């Protein structure tokens, strides 16, 4: 995963989660408080826009941290 793409994705994800970009470290937890339908749809859109990947939504909603989300994206990018 290229750093420029990761930075672009995290910026969009921060917007979707309604948090400051600085707060979005790998250990940031995705909870029922912040991981609602708007945030999930925003994350799907961000992954599509930055990586050109249509992420399987059932896998996306099971992510419980930003780290897990990044690992999912990394795996999907590797699978091409």
């Amino acid at each position: 995963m290229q750093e420029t793409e990761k930075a672009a994705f995290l910026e969009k994800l921060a917007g979707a989660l309604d948090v400051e970009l600085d707060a979005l470290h790998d250990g940031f937890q995705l909870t029922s408080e912040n991981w609602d339908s708007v945030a999930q749809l925003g994350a799907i859109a961000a992954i599509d826009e930055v990586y050109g990947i249509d992420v399987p939504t059932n896998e996306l909603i099971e992510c419980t941290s930003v780290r897990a989300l990044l690992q999912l994206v990394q795996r999907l990018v590797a699978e091409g």
Partner: protein
Amino acid sequence: MRIGVDIERVDRFAFLQRPVGGAFYRRVYTAAEQQLCGTLPVRLARCFAAKEAVAKALGTGLAIADPDRVACIDMEMGGGGADNAWRTVTLTGKARAVARTIGVRQVEIASGVVAGVAYALAGVATTASEVCELHVILDAAAAEVRHRLSAVRTGHDLRRSEARRGA
């Protein structure tokens, strides 16, 4: 009669201010809704709240990954107009199938914005008498939602004001 309610903070939709047609838009808004909403957060939030409210009134909620739920684009809001008030909805796909199953005769929407929060209520009538009462009940429920949102906002502003005085 079934009533679905949803609220969305308008400023959360500001991050979507990019050219219409992006990935989020395609998944959430129909082509006609995209034209009506443009990239205005207040319209996007209100339309999304209306979709959530309709899906709740149908008893499924909106689908993100669950195929048994109603998808955002399984419905098209209408009547946005200059005041951004979504009043009508055309059900398609899964939403239409669910509506048929539960015997929906009419769906109405009431929506608005109070202090930066978009709210929407959807009423689903399944009998002739419910159809007659739907508009009145929905208006009364919408007034209650507006009242509660105003009260919450007033309380929030008071607490901020007190905090500033304390500081």
